[in-house]
């Protein structure tokens, strides 16, 4: 489905030692050409931008770098980004677990449509994700006049940023857990019930240990997007400095003011977050592969 590829945790097949064989292997120079081309593409489009973030951030020295991060506007942007992640990620986590439970443990009509609906936010442009909340809550929107009369601010305020973030990160946990729990079936849960476990105990002691790594994986990806979302948040935020500026929006403002060193300093924090995300993701994949191969051997 659009926007996401299957990232289900699975054991990667282990390639055993390969002997060079002219009929089933490429000649050495073809191999070098393929590796070289692949790595050139990787370095030019991926490594270079990543490296440039850190080089540009420290171009004017450590003092300028730290000053940019200690700036009150930067600190309030960091705080807003953390608040948004702390609220939106747990909500989508609870949703993801509930949706995966309903979809994988029971049969009901319309299941495939429901899964497609859950994936919808991935195929909507972030800008449109922001637009829909402006249409609902904006001054001319559905509830706009009511909110205006009662002095409740949604758009150009934190609630709007939260809603837009929850929308764009909506599918992450669910789409990680659905294939995983589908593959694990429901025999273990049924056995636990027969042995007298109560509903919550079944989840806590039978299901959760089985899906823990998948949950972590989904949460980490969800968190990265929640902290880094730019387009959707940009539409609903109103760009009020020190109030409705998240870290990515703060990067934009600094950049547009030609304050490049500060822009890249804040950007480098987000890049570190991305690298940490990939590190945890790799660790989780490695862990899941290990569990899988142990299961096969045992």
């Amino acid at each position, binding site marked *: 489905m659009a*926007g996401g590829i299957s*990232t289900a945790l699975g054991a990667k097949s282990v390639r055993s030692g390969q002997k060079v064989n002219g009929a089933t292997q490429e000649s050495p120079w073809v191999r070098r050409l393929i590796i070289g081309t692949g790595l050139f593409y990787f370095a030019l489009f991926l490594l270079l931008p990543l490296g440039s973030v850190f080089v540009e951030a420290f171009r004017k020295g450590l003092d300028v770098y730290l000053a940019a991060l200690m700036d009150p506007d930067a600190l309030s942007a960091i705080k807003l980004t953390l608040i948004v992640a702390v609220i939106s990620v747990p909500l989508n986590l609870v949703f993801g677990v509930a949706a995966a439970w309903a979809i994988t443990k029971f049969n009901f009509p319309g299941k495939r449509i429901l899964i497609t609906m859950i994936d919808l936010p991935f195929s909507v442009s972030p800008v449109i994700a922001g637009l829909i909340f402006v249409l609902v809550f904006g001054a*001319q929107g559905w509830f706009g006049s009511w909110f205006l009369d009662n002095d409740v601010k949604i758009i150009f305020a934190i609630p709007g940023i939260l809603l837009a973030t929850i929308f764009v990160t909506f599918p992450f946990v669910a789409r990680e857990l659905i294939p995983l729990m589908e593959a694990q079936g429901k025999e273990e849960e049924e056995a636990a019930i027969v042995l007298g476990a109560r*509903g919550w105990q079944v989840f806590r002691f039978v299901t959760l240990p089985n899906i823990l790594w998948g949950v972590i994986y989904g949460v980490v990806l969800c968190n990265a997007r929640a902290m880094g979302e730019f387009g959707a948040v940009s539409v609903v935020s109103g760009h009020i400095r020190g109030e409705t500026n998240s870290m990515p929006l703060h990067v934009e403002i600094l950049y547009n003011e030609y304050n490049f060193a500060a822009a890249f300093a804040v950007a480098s924090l987000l890049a570190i977050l991305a690298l940490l995300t990939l590190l945890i993701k790799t660790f989780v994949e490695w862990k899941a592969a290990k569990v899988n191969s142990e299961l096969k051997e045992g």
Partner: protein
Amino acid sequence: MSKPLFKRSVIPGFGVTLGFTLAYLGLIVLIPLSAVIWKTSDLTLLQFWQTISEPRVVASLKLSFGASLIAATVNAFFGLILAWALVRYSFPGKKIVDTLVDLPFALPTAVAGIALTAIYAKNGWLGQYLEPLGIKIAFTPIGIMIALIFIGLPFVVRTVQPVLEDLDKEIEEAAASLGANRAQTVFKVVLPIILPALLTGFALAFARAVGEYGSVIFIAGNLPMVSEIAPLMIITKLEQYDYSGATSIAVVMLFLSFILLLIVNSLQAWTAKRTGREV
């Protein structure tokens, strides 16, 4: 189907979890999305057409879809090569490359945007060498393509990689023992098997690129008629309080994304059928 619609299950929690799922889905996704349709029904067909046929809007839609198509094609070609190298060969740093391929999924788009601009601007890392050669990248459609290549990079690699990994070596050995040379085996045996996965990756990269905003606007320069993308036109309309105009462009984009979604779904069904693996 002979199964009853609702099979009794001993596992508890069906009502609670499905109820919560539907309520949350409705509140966060479906009701807000339906606002677009509600807003569109406010418009007359003439108003809709006037917005959509504005030269600036037409240019932005053409640019968004054209640049996305080229970027997805570049990613399909190089992504296949990188996936091949990662699955079939070993080379130093392979694990690191494999991990970092997902970077565009994890790196905030605004960060990618300013980084690419720093590289390709007139006085940038590469820009300073390209500019004297007469090659302008930043603030042109080429810059937009480069940003779209960046954000679409993981899709093809990650859809082709697992299919290539699961590919039975015996198929290639059979082709070889029947007298095919290596090139024939690769192009007539292996490539047709991974073709559906390759097309899926292409379509996913394309769909993502069409809606992309953050990584593009910095490097695009946003010159009307030259380097304005469709999502930016939505924001421009919103800033002019032209909600109908913004919604009209959004409807066109949503419609085209919906068609893409259908194509991706049928491609994935094709992949599953051809390779016998669940996608």
